[in-house]
């Protein structure tokens, strides 16, 4: 058997379609379909909210906007560290890749930690998937005298948790994916293409959060 016949294939860098590697094209196709899933949920949120505009609770009175803004900043920082990891791979700098990938993973973990804290605080205080508890409504009424709580609170709570939790699951998947890639880097099994592909996934998660943050948290 000749050497060429037994040579192992490279790690996905060789084959190209439309000027990009097959792996990168596959990730883009996945992100396109995943983006449609997110848009379905966001469209449902917008339609439900617009259809119940007068009865929709004011999100800023129930959600921790400042804390979530910090979380958004954390995700933006992790996107920058992901780009730095990619640039380190272009420069063949293994130490740089390791450090920046670890920083990206840390960013993802901080984001998830803050989200879990937010959920825990809300659920224990009575803001659950099925709606607001009597205690939550009582506390809200004391803090907002003279205002009426919309009757679509159940819809608001359900759509809020479905949308943000669906995104949170993506962040968790991203952290696992990044960890697998980091282990590969530590074992000297990495390519620029592989770093770029995991980067695409991570930036997509950031991009979707930018939209969710505006639509769900900021618009009163």
């Amino acid at each position, binding site marked *: 058997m000749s050497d060429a016949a037994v040579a192992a294939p490279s790690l996905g860098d060789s084959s190209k379609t439309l000027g990009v590697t097959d792996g990168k094209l596959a990730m883009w196709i996945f992100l396109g379909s995943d983006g449609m899933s997110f*848009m379905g949920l966001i469209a449902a949120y917008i339609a439900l909210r617009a259809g119940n505009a007068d009865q929709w609770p004011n999100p*800023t009175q129930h959600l921790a*906007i400042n804390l979530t803004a910090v979380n958004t*900043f954390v995700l933006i920082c992790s996107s*920058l560290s992901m780009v730095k990891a990619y640039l380190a791979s272009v*420069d063949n700098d293994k130490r740089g890749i390791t450090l920046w990938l670890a920083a990206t993973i840390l960013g993802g973990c901080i984001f998830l930690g803050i989200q879990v804290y937010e959920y825990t605080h809300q659920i224990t205080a009575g803001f659950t998937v099925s709606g607001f508890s009597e205690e939550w409504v009582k506390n809200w009424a004391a803090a907002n005298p003279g205002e009426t709580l919309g009757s679509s609170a159940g819809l608001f709570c359900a759509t809020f948790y479905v949308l943000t939790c669906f995104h949170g699951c993506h962040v968790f998947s991203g952290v696992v994916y990044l960890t697998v890639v980091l282990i590969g880097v530590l074992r000297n099994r990495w390519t620029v293409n592989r770093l770029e592909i995991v980067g695409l996934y991570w930036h997509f998660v950031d991009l979707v959060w930018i*939209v969710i*943050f505006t639509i769900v948290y*900021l618009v009163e």
Partner: protein
Amino acid sequence: MSEGHKHPRYILVFVWLTVMTLLEVVLAKYGFAMDTDAWWWTTVILLVVLALAKAALVGLYFMHLISERVTFIFIVCFPLFLAVVLVCSLIPDVVLG
């Protein structure tokens, strides 16, 4: 690929993303406090424009779409077009109840 040594654009994109996020929070806090329909619509439109600008920065620079072929960009952006169609197709149902 030696061009990987200098990439000041990424830091600039990061700064812009941070500034726009801060701007969004401030705008939401004071824009909605005005309590008139005109201000409400203005604030919502500005927030959506800022969110789309941030998403575009991430897509174009962090995801390198700006340096891809036009055909590839078209294929990638086609689901976005479908998403806009999806949202627009819901408008009659929302408006007419």
